[in-house]
């Protein structure tokens, strides 16, 4: 039995609205095991991104709890931001003033890795995602697909156990999206990572081990 690396129980979240609290997640539970890939689909505004942010510790649930695998067992994700969980965002979210190499190394530097070691790791990962010749390029001089590859390398540099990808191909054309998705799934499989993929694409969702749908604030099998 693979290790449990992500465990969410009874998550609920509502946002304040003029007419009163607007519930987005009602009662969401999820278990993800090492090496497993899970896709979550749902209509716009169904709470997919919110769920991903709760799973990654970027936000706190109104009710319920989330735990991810850390070096000493399961811990709250906000206690190991940037390390236990790796994020890939739809808009890449790269620092515009930093080069591809510096963007990737930044995540390691924040985690306390010495500069030289962080740069070496970043160089290796950028080579892995096919950007070995774009190390000194700023995001503005990279294509969307290349930016997403840099973001993928950044998400991997601190050796997370879970990768949370929020519509990573949402801003890309069909061909580039296919390339990025293939790369993402290949790396996840090669490194034995768990993947939670939020996507609108039925096709990409089909490639994951488990497919879920978020609707009415509840997660259910597709």
């Amino acid at each position, binding site marked *: 039995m693979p290790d449990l690396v992500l465990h969410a129980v009874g998550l609920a979240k509502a946002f304040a609205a003029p007419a009163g609290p607007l519930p987005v997640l009602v009662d969401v539970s999820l278990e993800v095991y090492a090496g497993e890939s899970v896709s979550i689909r749902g209509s716009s505004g169904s709470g997919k991104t919110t769920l991903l942010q709760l799973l990654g510790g970027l*936000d706190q649930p109104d009710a319920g709890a989330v735990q991810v695998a850390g070096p000493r067992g399961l811990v709250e994700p906000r206690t190991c931001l940037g390390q236990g969980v790796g994020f890939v965002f739809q808009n890449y979210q790269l620092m515009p003033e930093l080069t591809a190499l510096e963007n990737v190394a*930044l*995540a390691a530097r*924040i985690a306390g890795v010495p500069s030289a070691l962080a740069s070496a790791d970043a160089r290796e990962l950028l080579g892995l995602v096919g950007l070995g010749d774009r190390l000194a390029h700023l995001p503005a001089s990279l294509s969307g697909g290349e930016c997403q590859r840099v973001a993928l390398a950044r998400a991997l540099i601190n050796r997370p156990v879970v990768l949370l990808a929020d519509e990573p191909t949402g801003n890309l054309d069909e061909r580039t999206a296919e390339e990025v998705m293939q790369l993402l799934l290949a790396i996840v499989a090669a490194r034995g990572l768990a993947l939670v993929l939020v996507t609108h694409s039925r096709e990409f969702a089909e490639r994951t081990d488990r497919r879920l749908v978020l609707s009415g604030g509840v997660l259910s099998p597709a």
Partner: protein
Amino acid sequence: MPWFLHLALRQLFPPGKRFPAFATVSILGVALGVATLLVVQTVMNGFGEEHRNRIRESFGDCLVLSAQPIARPEELVAQLRRDREVTSATAFAEGPALARRGDFSGVAAVRGIDPTDPAQPARRYIHGGTFDDLDDGRVILGLGLAQQLRVRVGDKVELWSPVMAERAEKGKAPLPAEFEVCAILRTGFTEVDNTAALIPLRRFREIWHLGPRAHGIILRLRTPAQAEAVASRLNVGHPDLVFRPWQDIKRNFLEAIRFEKTMLFFLMFIITLVASFSIGSTLFSAVIRRSREVGVLAALGASQSRILALFGLQGLFIGALGTGLGFLLAWGILCFRDSILGAINAVFGDGDMVASVYQFARVPLHYDAMDFLAAGLFTLLVTTLAGLVPALWAASRKPSEAMRDA
């Protein structure tokens, strides 16, 4: 280099941009504020210093006065010259007189001085003629008095002392003392220039029937700034005399200058504060513009303190560079102050106020390290805070909010 320092430098000075708009405008804003503050302070210091020097040179570092004329001034002068703080001592006498030339007359404050004393302050303020020509038959007149009497160097004037009035009361014919004007004095102090008439002490004693006595002694000190302390010390050994330090002679005037400087500092402080708020708002909008990046940094595990440092450092860099540039700018403006003032006068059609009103050859300056230090520290503090306050707001938000709202 810590990552937040590296990122702060990159965000301020993005690669490939020689003059990034945000950094350039912010640094120039700070530099202008600092330069304005320092130029005003340094010029005000210069005016104050120049006035203080003139007071000292016109009245001496310390005046020794007495309720009665000093009976044996030469002895006292010799005794005071032996004091370690006194560099020169010279007796004087003074009294009012009516100055007259033809149909023009004016009130003169006649002072009898030792014309052979090389330390006579009047030597520095001779506007026409020669100080060394002063002898028993000659007088040096203040510029204002000379204009009032319509006299120039070489003209004759009569001085009528109160002693002459006493002679008239006794039925004796009062004869005025006649002098040839040998020089014109221009100190810049209106009250001195409008009334001063300098004659040799020996002649004064004759006219005023003073005998060997004198009205006071002018002291020059080794450390003029210590005049108050020296005066207090000397007073102890001479209870019948009053030692008045130069700071005391024109206390109200000096206080006015000091108050003027304080008020200008206060006004400049407000201007700098307003400029700081503008920098603060620029930094605030920059932080808001980077709100999504703040969220990403938090998602990558950056602590609040590091995010604060990232933006605080940017404020600090802007402050440090702006202050450095402000120092240079202030120095440049002060170096070319006369040309700048000349250009301003030419544009507005004003005359040379510095020469005509203040009677300074050029705009006076006095650099005070404390002013530079205070302006630098204040600016650094304000710009750092201007970066920290919006960063505190940004860093305190949840990463999800920061990323969503940007």
